[in-house]
């Protein structure tokens, strides 16, 4: 049993038939050809699948695809201007905040959402905003330095 939905993903209107039991994460990865959004726990614990959904940073594994009908979604593939990286992507690279990279799309999307809502977050605000994203490699230090470098430049 499938349900037809229309969603705007990274600025593009997409029509897709989704299963009733399917999560938005699966739709993005398997039906819409956007594997940048990662699947690591499917319980909303790790943040690897974070997307911006109608203005909110959410775990796409917890959104039923059928409920996304009419929604506007930004995935990691939609961050940055074409080939131009977003400043957060640049600074994550510069600070060595990427190791295995599996959590990175989730951190980028959550981080961009944070910066859109609070352009100069304090360290406790950064930690709080990113506390739903698990990184198993870096110990978070380099990620914190990336955000701090970006926000203290007054960018």
């Amino acid at each position, binding site marked *: 049993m499938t349900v037809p939905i229309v969603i705007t993903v990274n600025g593009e209107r997409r029509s897709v038939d989704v*299963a009733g*039991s399917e999560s938005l994460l699966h739709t993005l*990865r*398997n039906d819409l050809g*956007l*594997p*940048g*959004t*990662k*699947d*690591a*726990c*499917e*319980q909303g*614990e*790790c943040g*690897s699948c974070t997307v911006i959904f109608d203005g909110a940073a959410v775990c796409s594994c917890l959104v039923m695809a059928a409920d996304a009908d009419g929604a506007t979604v930004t*995935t*990691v*593939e939609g*961050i*940055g201007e074409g080939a131009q*990286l977003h400043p957060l*992507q640049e600074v*994550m*690279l*510069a*600070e*060595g905040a*990427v*190791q*295995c*990279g*599996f*959590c*990175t*799309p989730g951190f*980028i999307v959550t981080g961009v959402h944070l910066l859109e809502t609070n352009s100069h977050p304090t360290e*406790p605000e*950064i*930690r*709080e905003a*990113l*506390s*739903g*994203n*698990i*990184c*198993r*490699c*870096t*110990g*978070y*230090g*380099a*990620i*914190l330095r990336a955000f701090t470098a970006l926000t203290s430049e007054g960018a």
Partner: protein
Amino acid sequence: MTTRTLPRVRGGIGTSVGRPDGEPKVTGNFAFASDLSSPGMLWGATLRSPHAHATLTELDIGPALAMVGVHAVLTQDDVVGSPMFGQVEQDQPVLCDGTARYWGEPVAVVAADDEETARRAAAAIVAVWEPLDPLDDPERAAEIGSTFREMRIRRGDETAEGSVVVEGFYETATQDQAPLGPEAGFAIPDGEGGLDLYITSQWVHVDHRQIIACLDLEPDQVRCHPAGIGGAFGSREDISLHIHVAMLALATGRSVKMVYDRSESFVGHVKRHPSRMWYRHEADEDGNLVKVTARLILDGGAYAHTSPAVIANAAFFSVGPYRCDNVVIDAVVVRTNNPPAGAMRGFGVVQACFASESQMDSLAEAIGLAPLELRRRNALAPGDPFATSGQVIQGSLPTVAVIDALESIPIPDPIPSDDPRLAPGGTGLTTPRSAVVRGVGYAVGLKNLAFSEGFDDFAEARVVMTPAGIEIHTAAIEVGQGLVTVCQQIARTVLGVDRVAVVWKDTSQIGSAGSTSASRQTQMTGGAVHDAAVGLRDQILSLHGGDELRDDGVYKQGELVATVNEICSDGPVECHVRFRHPKTYPPDADGQGEIHAGFVVAAHRAVVDVDPELGLVRVVRVDTAQDVGRALNPQAIVGQLEGGIMQGMGFAVMEELVIDGGVIRNPTFTDYLIPTFLDAPDVEVRIIEEGDHWGPFGAKGIAESPTISSTPAIVAAIRAATGRSLTRVPVLPTDIVGV
């Protein structure tokens, strides 16, 4: 040996140059194994045992086969080659052989049109079980001789006695590597009976050996390709779904993808061995160690995996980085019906270090010495005999230097922060802030480098000059640690050339690089790249009569004498190297001999705030001084140290896979807690550079050290804050409150 001044080059060793795979990773374009797909591919799924120990009395695959969209259902009867696999000992059936020996053991695999159908079909298989009593007590297993390996180390005088004696019993729980990337494999049949396998692995060649044996195929019929990996930490050192996905592809003649979900991942890979350890340290009144006696039991679970090597590491590193002339160690790794254990960052040393460093603190207290002073007095140095194996320490080992450097890092303000978010338990803290107590603790850890005990340990690499630049060919696995960058840096520095790319090769295209484990790839594959680059450079310079290589060609006294196109006029020019570290030997009957190829040492200091009423801990900071040999990429070193410390902190205060009667009770990220951004302590790093006797430019592998001594340092800090003895990790709130 060629002696020449190393050219100055952009992105060479000693610089914090960025990762070549960084941009695809921040844009979401990096292909992890779980991202691979092709039109018309099938999905695989696995039926697993619901019992830790049971006889399979009936297995009916009919209901699954009858489902629309199901293309294959395979059982152990479909294994055409060797029915068993295993890296060290081939003791595990590919699929259940009639007896389930651990909870979650694979029983049958299914290929279907989509993921959901595959899972439903696996669930539709009828398996009838007769449950048996699980052997889940490791001490009982030791009593009845259900063991994988016993280690006996005797050095010096067993009757020696010290005037100060401390004894302790310690336990460590099961820790999971919990890499974010799940196990994943993508198998593409070649239409001629063979296949290409893209797989999450730490060592494709050792997987390949096991896969071809079970599939009964020739080596060149199966090509194992390194695929994009989302962390490993030891979890991918052993086979998971590799053989299953290959069998499904061969059976259906179609590409098959398998990916474990998180719960299946917890079941589907080996984990850190839980341990029980009894220790007696004896010293003289000045704190000089006289004798260490210890008994260690590690639970290897149902199948061997790397347990025989893990127990050796636990035994040989049971005294830590200290001199001691009299050592009596008995260590055993047992076979039970608990989840199989294997490699995890630190590989047996983590357990022993927790116990032995706890003992060193007890000894320091008994003698009245500061914790680091006791360690300094006994510090192992080059030229000393290693306490356990007796081998003379070669190369660098700056034990005192790391202790001194750690002490030089300023201790932070002793007043806990007023920010409620920084309190133990965060804003949920109900205890008055004035009741929060702070503690400081220390630990020092020693680890071997690369494989020990006479293992034929080597790494192959090929460095190739092409008109487009230098290529490094290797099958070494990049798990996120930054090997790809270090290889580029080494080649750039040796060759004086900027344009260097790493090109991953499959098992048919190059020989083994050995495992990405044991802190070995910087030295081993790095060593192979170094030597191959030297060989290539000398070959090209000699052929063209030059004295310097640059991106555009060979120069002599500043003049271009041959362009890259001229050098490559007959095709790419290459040098292929098989690199080996200094030879090691198996231990004798007393555990003596040249067992290890090298050593690395680190020290940690933890500062914690504890709420003694609720038993909550906030790890405020963990500082470290780390022996690195030579720092090839300082930023990457800091990243490894911070990340490793976080896993050590997880083990100290929160990470425990709860296993009850052989059943894992918390195989999810909801119930198995991993440190988050709010848990992360500040870390200050001191890097100690004293070049080692082998490896590129004297560099050492460093990535396990931070996970070894951070855990005991944090527990020591909690002891200092609470006065509790705390002999088990992770330390739980109930241990602190004392209920």
